[in-house]
């Protein structure tokens, strides 16, 4: 019963061949490890030599492939595009580097495995498992040792030490938590305001076309059209452009008077032009898959669907409330303007959101 593997544990000891059934006794009894059967390479030296050549050939292929990798790296300019059927117009460098590296690695692996499968011993060996659980003696010994140590420390007896240690260990991680405070500012009312919040009826903010960077005229926005706007003064190169546009982005549509279903929403608009927040109220994707015949706007991320003719009511999907709408009108020059902020926070809802 030796633990290590030596020649005398080879399966010869289990000599049952495994094809005959004992006439008496348990027919399902374990017949023991089957006897080893030789492979061709075990008995035929020529087969073994052939396998050896195959393995070496694979290793040689790998070497050649590595040379190919280095050659490709040197030869191909990075922007060279070649046509490879059926993949298409690919980068010559990426394709050749990837394939040569792949072949170089694959052949090492294939060679090693072929070697193991054909030329290394394939005798199946049994190894005994060790017991994972300790025996009772060891167990008792360890518990005794622990008790001795615990008694010597006096941890259980000296309650004051114990309690203050627990207290100090419990408090010390708080420093780490406190240090996290400056990860970001407090939310305060940041989520309730957008770039439109400085607009007043006296000092309105113009709607600027995202495409042209120009103010917009109502007559440009035809029924069935779709356009996007940002507030006047927000420029792409502003340092906080990304943060601002994440809240300010507008989607403008014009809906024929007969199709408008929500009176309140119509009043916020101007002659059927409605300005909705482009930010989905579900988790904030820019929603703008506008179906101009049904007036539905769909979010590409989770398919929340809003009926823009009906105050952007949610008609499908996981969004919980309509898209906020911006009140718009025209200024004296005839450009579309906002006279105030959205009357509710834009984007996904959150705990402090009151409506």
């Amino acid at each position, binding site marked *: 019963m030796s633990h290590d593997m030596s020649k005398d544990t080879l399966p010869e000891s289990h000599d049952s061949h495994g094809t005959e059934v004992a006439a008496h006794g348990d027919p399902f*009894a*374990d017949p023991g490890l089957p006897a080893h059967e030789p492979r061709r390479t075990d008995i035929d030296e020529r087969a073994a030599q052939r396998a050896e050549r195959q393995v070496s050939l694979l290793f040689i292929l790998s070497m050649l492939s590595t040379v190919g990798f280095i050659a490709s790296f040197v030869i191909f300019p990075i922007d060279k595009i070649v046509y490879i059927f059926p993949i298409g117009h690919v980068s010559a460098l990426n394709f050749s580097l990837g394939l040569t590296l792949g072949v170089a690695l694959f052949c090492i692996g294939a060679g090693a495995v072929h070697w193991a499968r054909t030329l290394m011993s394939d005798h199946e*060996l049994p190894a005994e498992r060790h017991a994972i659980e300790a025996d009772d003696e060891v167990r008792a010994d360890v518990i005794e040792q622990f008790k001795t140590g615990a008694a010597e420390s006096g941890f259980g007896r000296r309650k004051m030490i114990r309690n203050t240690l627990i207290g100090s260990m419990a408090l010390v991680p708080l420093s780490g938590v406190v240090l996290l405070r400056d990860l970001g500012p407090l939310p305060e009312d940041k989520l309730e305001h957008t770039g439109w919040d400085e607009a007043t009826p006296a000092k309105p903010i113009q709607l600027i076309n995202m495409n042209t960077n120009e103010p917009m005229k109502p007559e440009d926005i035809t029924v069935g059209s779709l356009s996007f706007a940002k507030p006047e003064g927000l420029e792409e190169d502003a340092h906080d452009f990304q943060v601002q546009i994440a809240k300010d982005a507008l989607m403008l549509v014009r809906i024929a008077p007969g199709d408008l279903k929500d009176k309140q929403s119509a009043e916020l608009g101007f002659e059927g032009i409605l300005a909705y927040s482009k930010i989905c109220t579900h988790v904030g994707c820019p929603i703008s898959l506008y179906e101009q015949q049904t007036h539905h706007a769909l979010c590409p991320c989770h398919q929340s669907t809003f009926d823009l003719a009906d105050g952007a009511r949610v008609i499908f999907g996981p969004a919980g409330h309509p898209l906020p709408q911006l009140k718009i009108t025209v200024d004296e020059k005839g450009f579309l303007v906002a006279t105030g902020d959205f009357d509710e926070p834009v984007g996904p809802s959150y705990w402090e959101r009151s409506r």
Partner: protein
Amino acid sequence: MTASSTKGAAKPASTRAKPANKAESAADWVDGRLGLYTLAKSNLRKIFPDHWSFMLGEICLYTFIIIILTGVYLTLFFNPSMGEVVYHGSYAPLDGIRMSEAYASTLRISFEVRGGLLIRQIHHWAAIVFVAAMLVHMMRVFFTGAFRKPREINWLFGFLLLFLGMFDGFMGYSLPDDLLSGTGVRFMEGAVLAVPLVGTYLQMFLYGGEFPGTDIVPRFFTIHVLLIPGIMLGLLVAHLILVFYHKHTQWAGPGKTEKNVVGMPLMPVYMAKAGGFFFLVFGIISACSAIATVNPIWAYGPYRPDQVSTDAQPDWYMGFSEGLIRIMPGWEIGLWGHTLNLGVFVPLMVFPLVLVAIAVYPFIESWVTGDKREHHILDRPRNAPVRTGLGAAWISLYLVLLIGGGNDLLATHLHLSLNDITYFVRVGFFVVPVITFFVTKRWCLGLQRRDKDKVLHGRETGVIKRLPHGEFVEVHAQLPAAKLHTYTAHEQPQPLELPAEFDENGVKRKVGVIAKTRAKLSQGFYGEGTQIPKPTAEEHHEITSGHGHH
């Protein structure tokens, strides 16, 4: 072999034989400092059983190594900054476009660093295969019952690796700050905001202010390249140590018992096979990266919060959470001036539950069945119909959610209505796992019956014989003893019984609700209709003595 026998052998040998060559003397030198020989004694010829499904874990290990190697390379060129630049690099279709430095440096890796695109693609393909292999590996362990004692803790380590792997993948996907991944980061903002009470605080602290801010990419970078891989590396080492310590499980078969493990030695066979397999995996992933594009960030464009592309999906391993989000109805509750966004919060909570359900399964099963023994012989899935049914139900749930997560692509490619798919998934979420459970269980029983037939009547040879009175019969050949043993090696445990209602003194026992539930569940696991009784030796004798013909 026992603890006491190794104790005595610790004395240093002063009369050591002279080293035969330089290699031996080098080994002696190491042994004198690290105890090399003692370490190698039990490991050099360690036995591993041969089965392809035992190599799934190796795919995970090797892809993880590939990811680390290529990841280190990528950090040499990637600039994890959200500072904005105007691009004037070699990719003309984005010339003059504003973008973050993270995105610009990823373009640089793809178009200006020779081999950069290849390494990026190897990194990403390896990540996709890594998580897939972990899931398949976990399923192998699940369906064969390899998670049972003593391997429950290793199952948990493996589960944590899967969980962390998914999140690390998500963060890696977010780093280039392209239009697709930015949309994912935006989703995460919405999800964090939906957390009751502290959502807005968490969001501000995570993003360093309002979305998107300029902190999230550098923060994700640190977590992606240092924190999570560090934890994963530790777990991985622990996972492997335990695999070595427990020794591998094996299938039932002739000569294989709970007390041994039968296979080939580490040196040389598994060094060559497992070592070679690393190169095979690396080779295949490299070839994939030569042939197929992954994550063409240049085509997505840089992230802007007001832009989006349809087909906005995460990498596949987050797909089931995407499905959960997409199928959830838009419930939102107003509470005393507060908003509870159930439409996001419920999926956010169900998402970890789906995973935790599978993680805690070993403990539930051992509690229900009361089985506290060690198991080293694997179950064939058919011989544990309830477990197999539960596992299949879990997979079906996962697949249904994946369908939900890809509903838009299914709609366009199968010419279906997006809305119909979503409705189907909403119902399917509840119904499909139940159906799958029962179908799988029945199927397992059918397979058990077939095994029983084979054991009793032999296998069909395909040879048709005509009997003297004209009847045609197919000749059945008796199975060899090895097969007979393999097919009957499994146990068929009995369900737990509740203690008798009255004890020996005639006093009514109090049986708690928990004990009752446990007995009920145990009935469900091992009670009536969960297994086909194994053929007995008597049955076998009776039939074989009647010349195996009926």
